C-alpha cells in the first residue's frame, strides 16, 4: 500500500513539474551571455511587448568561458545574439569568426573610442574600469596616502597591503595585468615582469578570483589587505549594499593615470543564427536609452551612450579615471596568452 501511494506521489510530482522549454508560441531570440548578465524586469518586458519577441537567456559561465564556448560552437551557434565578450577576449572571438556584422542605427551616439572593430562585427554596450579599491577606514586610521601610480605599490608604505587576482582565471585580474603591461611595457630595462617581481617582493597576495580577493582578503570583509583589484563601480555598489545603510563611501578607487584598465563589453549577432532579425532588434534595444540607463544598477558598469543618465549613486560615489591604460584589441590579442604564461611562470611558479 505504502509503496503504491509513494509511486503515485512521485508520478504526480513528475507531472506537476513546470512545463519544460519548447512550449512557447512567440518568436524567440536566444541570448547567449555570461553569468553576470542582468536587466530590470520592466525593461525587458517592455521590449518583449513592443517587439513581440521572446528573449531566452542562456548563461555560460564567465566572460572567458563564454568566449571559448562561442568559438567552439562557431559552426552551429548556441543562440542568436551574444553579449558579454569584452575587449580582453574579443580578439579570440573575432579570430573564431563567430559574428554576423551589424551596424545599429543607434551606434551614432556612441563615442568612437568604444568602436574598436571597423568591420562592425561587434557593438559596444557598456564599459567598466578595473581599478584598485582601497578601504577608506583603514587608510584613514593608518594615515596612509592613497597611491596615485602603479609604481607606488612597490614602496615600503604598501608592503603586504595589496591583493590581486590571478589573470589566468579572473577577468579583473587579467585587466590589471594588462594595465601593468601598458604602463611598464614588455621590453626595456624595467618590464612589467620586473614590476611584478617588485610587487611580489613587496608582499602582493595573488588569489584565484574576485570573490576570494574581495570577500576573503580585503579588510572590508575582515581580511588583512586594504588594497584590492576591483572596479571603479565597486564603491557605489558597496554603498548600495552596505549593511546597515550608510551615507558616505566605505571604499575608494585609485584612479591615477594608467592605474586602471578599461573593459568594454560587446554584443554581436551570431553567424548562422536562426533569428538574425530578432538578434539585431535586441542589439538596438541594448543601445536604447532605456537599457543603457538600466545598466549601472543591474550590472554595475557604465553605459557607452553618453546621453544615458547615470543614477545618483554612481554620480556621487563612482570615480571615473581620466586616463585609463590603453591597449588595442590587436595588441591584446597578440600578447595575451604569452603574457599570462610569462606572468604565471614569474609570479606563481
Amino acid at each position, binding site marked *: 500500500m505504502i509503496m503504491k501511494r509513494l509511486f503515485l506521489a512521485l508520478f504526480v510530482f513528475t507531472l506537476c513539474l513546470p512545463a519544460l522549454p519548447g512550449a512557447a508560441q512567440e518568436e524567440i531570440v536566444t541570448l547567449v551571455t555570461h*553569468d553576470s548578465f542582468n536587466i530590470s524586469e520592466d525593461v525587458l518586458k517592455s521590449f518583449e511587448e513592443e517587439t513581440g519577441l521572446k528573449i531566452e537567456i542562456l548563461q555560460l559561465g564567465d566572460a572567458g568561458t563564454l568566449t571559448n564556448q562561442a568559438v*567552439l*560552437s562557431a559552426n*552551429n551557434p548556441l543562440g542568436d545574439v551574444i553579449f558579454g565578450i569584452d575587449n580582453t577576449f574579443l580578439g579570440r572571438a573575432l579570430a573564431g569568426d563567430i559574428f554576423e556584422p551589424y551596424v545599429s542605427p543607434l551606434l551614432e551616439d556612441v563615442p568612437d573610442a568604444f568602436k574598436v572593430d571597423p568591420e562592425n562585427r561587434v557593438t559596444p554596450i557598456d564599459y567598466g574600469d578595473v581599478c584598485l579599491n582601497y578601504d577608506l577606514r583603514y587608510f584613514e586610521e593608518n594615515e596612509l596616502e592613497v597611491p596615485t601610480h602603479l609604481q607606488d605599490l612597490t614602496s615600503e608604505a604598501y608592503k603586504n597591503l595589496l591583493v590581486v587576482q590571478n589573470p589566468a582565471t579572473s577577468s579583473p585580474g587579467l585587466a590589471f595585468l594588462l594595465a601593468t603591461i601598458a604602463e611598464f611595457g614588455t621590453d626595456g630595462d624595467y618590464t612589467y615582469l620586473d614590476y611584478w617581481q617588485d610587487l611580489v617582493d613587496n608582499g602582493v597576495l595573488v588569489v584565484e578570483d574576485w570573490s576570494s580577493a574581495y570577500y576573503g582578503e580585503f579588510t572590508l570583509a575582515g581580511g588583512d589587505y586594504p588594497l584590492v583589484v576591483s572596479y571603479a563601480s565597486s564603491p557605489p*555598489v558597496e554603498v548600495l549594499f552596505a549593511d546597515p545603510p550608510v551615507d558616505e563611501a566605505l571604499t575608494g578607487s585609485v584612479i591615477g593615470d594608467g592605474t586602471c584598465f578599461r573593459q568594454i563589453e560587446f554584443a554581436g549577432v551570431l553567424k548562422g543564427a536562426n533569428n538574425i532579425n530578432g538578434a539585431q532588434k535586441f542589439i538596438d534595444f541594448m543601445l536604447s536609452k532605456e537599457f543603457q540607463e538600466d545598466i549601472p544598477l543591474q550590472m554595475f558598469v557604465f553605459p557607452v551612450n553618453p546621453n544615458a543618465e547615470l543614477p545618483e549613486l554612481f554620480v556621487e560615489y563612482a570615480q571615473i579615471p581620466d586616463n585609463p591604460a590603453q591597449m588595442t584589441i590587436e595588441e591584446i590579442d597578440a600578447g595575451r*596568452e604569452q603574457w*599570462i*604564461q610569462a606572468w604565471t611562470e614569474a609570479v606563481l611558479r
Partner: protein
Amino acid sequence: MDRSRTALIWRYAGRGLLLTPLLFLLVFFFYPLGSILQFSLAPDGKLDFAAFQQIFSRPYYRETLWFTTWQAALSTLLTLGLAFPAAHVFAKYQFPGKSLLLALATIPFVLPTVVVATAFIALLGEDSALNGLLMKVFKLEEPPLHLERSLKIILLAHIFYNYAVALRIISSFWSNQSQRIQEAAQMLGASRWMVFYRITLPLLLPAVTAAAALVFMFCFTSFGVVRILGGLKYATLEVEIHYQSLSLFDLPTAGALSVIQLMTTLVMMIVYTNLQRQMTQPLNLQSSRQVARKPRRWAEKGWLALNLIVMSLLIFAPILALIERSFTLGDGGFTTRYYEQLQENPHRSIRAVAPVAAIQNSLEYAFFVTIFSVLLGTLAAYLLSQKTRFSRWLDPVFMLPLAASAVTLGFGFIITLDEPPLNLRSSYWIVPIAHTLVAMPLVVRSVLPSLRAIKPSIGEAAAVLGASRWQRWRRIELPLITRSIAVGATFAFTVSMGEFGASSFVARPNQPTIPIVIFRFLGQPGLANYGQALAMSVILMAVCAAGFVLIERLNRAVIGEF
C-alpha cells in the same frame, strides 16, 4: 506464446536493460569526450603528438602530476583514517541522533569552496579564536597555526569534503557484517586487535577500497579547494587543464593533459577494480538493526564519544561557524536580516530569484538526478557484478566520469550535443545529465560491494521456492542492497544540490539553483550581498539535510529497514 519463448524474451530484455548505463556513458561521456579530444589533438584527422612531447619535456608537468597524485593519496589516507573509526561507531552502536549526525556529516559535500574557505579561516585563520586561545594557553608571541594557503588546509578541506563519502560507504557495509565471524575468531584465541586485523578489516576491504577510490578521484581532480584554499602555489592537473583551456585556449595542450589525467586514473582504477573483485566474498549479511546495539561498557561509551568529538571538530565546527556568521555578520549583533533580504528584489532585476524558487529549481534537478543515477547506477552495478570478462573490463570504465576534467567534458558537450536527436546543448536536461555522470559512479561504488556480497544460494533458494526473477529481485536482493542504494541516492542528491564542476561548463537556461544564487551574491561587492550568500548557504545546508532525512524515510517506507 509458449512459456519458454516468453522466458527467452525476458532474458534478452533483461540483458538490454543492463546495457542502458553503458549506452548512457557512450552517448553522454565517451562521445563528447572523444570528439573534443579528437578536435583538440587531431584536428585534421592525424594525431599530433607535439602537445604530448611538449608536456613530457617540461619538468613542471611531471611535478604537477606527482603533486596531484601524492596530495590525493595523502588526503585519501587521512580521510579514511578519520572516517574508519567513525564508521565502526556508526555501524556497531545505536545512539540518539545517529541518522541526523550522518545527514549533517554529508552536508559539506554541497558547500561552495569560497563559502567553506571563509568558515575555515574564521575557525583556524591567524586571527581566529583558536589561535588566540593557543597563544594565551601557551603564552606565545605569534599565532601557532599558519594554515592559510598551505598544504595543510588543502588536506583539511579534502577531509572535510570527503569524510562522509568514506563514512557512509564503509559503515553501511559494516553494519550488515555478521558478528558471528568475529566471535569465531575470538573463540580461536584472537585478541580484539587480531580479530580486527585478520578478520574484520579483510572483510571490510571491498567497502574500504571503494571509498578510497572515490575519495582519491575527488582529490585527484580537485580544483577549487587547491586554488582557493591552498593558494596559487599549488596546482593539480585539473588546475592546469582549466588554465590551458580557459585562459590560454590552448586546446591541444589541454587535451593532452586531459588524456594524461584520464589514463593515470584509468590505470589506478584498473588496479583498484581488480583488487576489489578478488577481495569481495559472499557473506552472510545481517540486518543492521541486529548488528547495532547500545554502547554498554565505559570503554565503548568513551570510544563513541571520542569519535563524535573528532567528527564535531572536523565537520560540525565549520558548519556551525558558517551558520553563526550568517546571523551575526556586520556590527549589529544577532540578525535575521540577510534571510529577510533574500525575499526582496529592490532593483526589480530579472536575476533576482526568491529563495523558494531557487530551492524548487535545485530540488527539481536533484530529483531527476537521483532517479537517473539510482536507476542507471544500480543497473550498472548488476552489469559489473556479473562474472564475465566483459564486465571485468568495464568496471574501471564506470569510474572514468569522475576522472574527466569538467571543462573538457563541457567543451565536448558544446561541439557534440548540437544536432537532433541529441540537440541538448541548451535544453533543460543537459544539467541533470551532467550531474548524473558524476553521481552514477557514486551509486555504482555504493551498491557493488553489497551486491557482490550476496550469496548466490540465497537467490537460488528463492527461485526454488517459486520466485520469478522479478520477485527474487524485489523480495530478496533489493532488501539486501537497499542500504547501499540509499547511500548512493544520498550522494546523487548531494552531487546535484552542490552543483559539481561538471555542470558549470554547460549552458544553462535561466533557472538558477541555490549554488548559482550563492555565486551571484558572491560576485558583487557589499556586505548585504555577502550576508545573503551566507544565508543562502545555510538554506542549502538545511534543504540538503531535509533531503537526506527524506531519502532515509523513503528507503524505509519502500523497502523496510535492513
